[in-house]
């Protein structure tokens, strides 16, 4: 049994009188692919925001690599090895695809800015490495054709993949994907599932994803949590979730078994 990379311990998040997450416990084993599902407004993205440090949980703790990361700043959490994508894509739209990925490399940089201005050889070498690594990643993700294009001019699917490439550039161990299959047709979703498995193996990742496309969730996730109104109503593997009466009532609906097959 591998150790847990990420743990949420009794996390509660309140906004004024609204309780967005209540007493949530989650544990993600290393190198697993897990899913977080639930109806709209169930608090899924809030969970992401708590893990990535945008919100400090009202109660409870988030642990990452056996370390309490509750209350750390977002950029500090990123440098520990955690990256995410956004539900509504948030690229740096005025920059080229390559520059977007290069920005992701910044967090691993060792040389200071004045070394770059003075043109010291170490800094110049690092600059070349950043560019080479970014090009390599773009190539791996299959976007090298768009390398010099502005991010805003990329087609939708390419923007989604660029966001993942940018996240991978920070060398994460844990990747959070917020609705990666949104707006994709069945063929593209299928490719996405393979893609998620591939990057997990290639980059040694632990992945947590939020998704509404049940085909993707059931197909790729090894473990699934179901949220409703901020409360965990079920967890387990795909088969257990599919047959769980509470989940069917709250979220999936009666005809899920027909749809998923």
């Amino acid at each position, binding site marked *: 049994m591998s150790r847990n990379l990420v743990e949420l311990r009794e996390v509660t998040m309140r906004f004024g009188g609204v309780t967005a997450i209540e007493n949530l416990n989650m544990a993600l084993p290393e190198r697993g692919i897990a899913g977080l599902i639930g109806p709209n407004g169930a608090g899924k993205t809030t969970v992401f925001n708590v893990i990535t440090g*945008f919100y400090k949980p009202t109660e409870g703790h988030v642990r990452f690599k056996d370390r309490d990361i509750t209350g750390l*700043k977002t950029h500090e959490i990123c440098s520990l090895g955690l990256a995410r994508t956004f539900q509504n894509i948030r690229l740096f739209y005025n920059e080229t695809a390559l520059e977007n990925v290069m920005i992701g490399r910044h967090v691993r940089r060792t040389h200071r800015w004045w070394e*770059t201005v003075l043109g010291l050889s170490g800094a110049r070498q690092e600059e070349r490495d950043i560019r080479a690594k970014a090009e390599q990643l773009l190539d791996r993700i299959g976007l090298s054709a768009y390398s010099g294009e502005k991010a805003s001019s990329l087609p939708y699917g390419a923007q989604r993949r660029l966001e993942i490439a940018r996240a991978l550039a920070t060398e994460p161990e844990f990747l959070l994907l917020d609705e990666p299959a949104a707006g994709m047709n069945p063929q593209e979703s299928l490719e996405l599932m393979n893609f998620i498995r591939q990057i997990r193996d290639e980059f040694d990742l632990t992945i947590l994803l939020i998704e509404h496309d049940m085909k993707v969730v059931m197909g790729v996730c090894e473990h699934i949590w179901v949220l409703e109104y901020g409360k965990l109503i079920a967890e387990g593997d795909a088969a257990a979730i599919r047959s769980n009466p509470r989940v069917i009532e709250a979220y999936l609906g009666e005809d899920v078994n027909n749809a998923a097959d």
Partner: protein
Amino acid sequence: MNAKPAFNKRDAALTALALAVLYLFLWWADGSMAGALSWSFLPSPLNGYEIQILNLVAVYGILAISLNIIYGFTGMFSLGHAGFMAIGAYVSALCVLSPEQKEIMWIIDEILPPLAALHTPFWFSVILGGVVATIFALFIGIPVLRLGGDYLGIATLGFSEIIRVLIVNATPITNGSLGIKGIPCYTDLFTSFTWLIIVIFCTVRLLNSNFGNVLKAVRDDEIAAQVMGINVFHAKLFSFCLGAFLAGAGGALLGNLLTTIDPKMFTFLLTYNILMIVVAGGLGSITGSIIGSVIITVLLEWLRVVEEPLDLGFIHIPGIPGMRMVVFSVCLLIIILYRREGIMGMREITWNSIGRWFSSLGQSKEDKA
């Protein structure tokens, strides 16, 4: 004038060539070439007024780049530029004036003893002006940079006014509203353009590196930048201080160019002039800032024509002082309405883009033939 870091030999050679041409031009313009060579076919050098305009172009270029780093590249709407320039100009003036001059000039209050004895070389005073401006930027930036958008603009504008009021009232240091006169005119053509070239070289090097990408990332999307592990506050503070340093140095050069500084010079109008250059040239474009500073400085002088009295024989229009600012505002309105991104937008002129432009010219000629 677009010194890209020399990644390859062709660019380095072309940059060196451009610099050589520029310095030859300056050598001719300031009249020392005629003195040294006494070739009869040389056109007569520029007069003092034209040289002054060229100097202003270089100084405004530095100032425009400094504001562009803050506003164009990092997306912080800062209106505190006049304040940083004032700090730079006063620090530099206090450094380069001789003790005797200071003793004569401070008539309201005695000058502070340690300042009275201060006497440093010009280049050092420019850097010190920048450093002091940076220290002020740190103090103002740490509380204020948490604000976003227009609020930051208002706060920095307030800072700039505070600096001005401080200068008026700190008579033992600044000689109050009398200002400082008789600053030696150290900013000649070579000095101003050398500073401009050093500034361009360093900023282009920085902005073309991944640090430039990081600043642009903060401008485009702060939240995504945080997720990418960028310490957004640090990045903003860095950019703000760098801009302030260059503004301070630019202010020091300006003081030594005009030889007279007083608090009234550093009002919001000065910030507005720089802002105009940056916006007209293109937010987020260094070449745009240079082009903008050339066009706007020259245009502002050239537009003095409209302020002169006009005699058409049957009708006589007296000169209206300030008319050129009206014409100028109209020009700016037209830019904002029809070309919002400015002359260059976020693009840069590089040797590559010049090469492409020439080859496309050749292409179209071949097509016609």
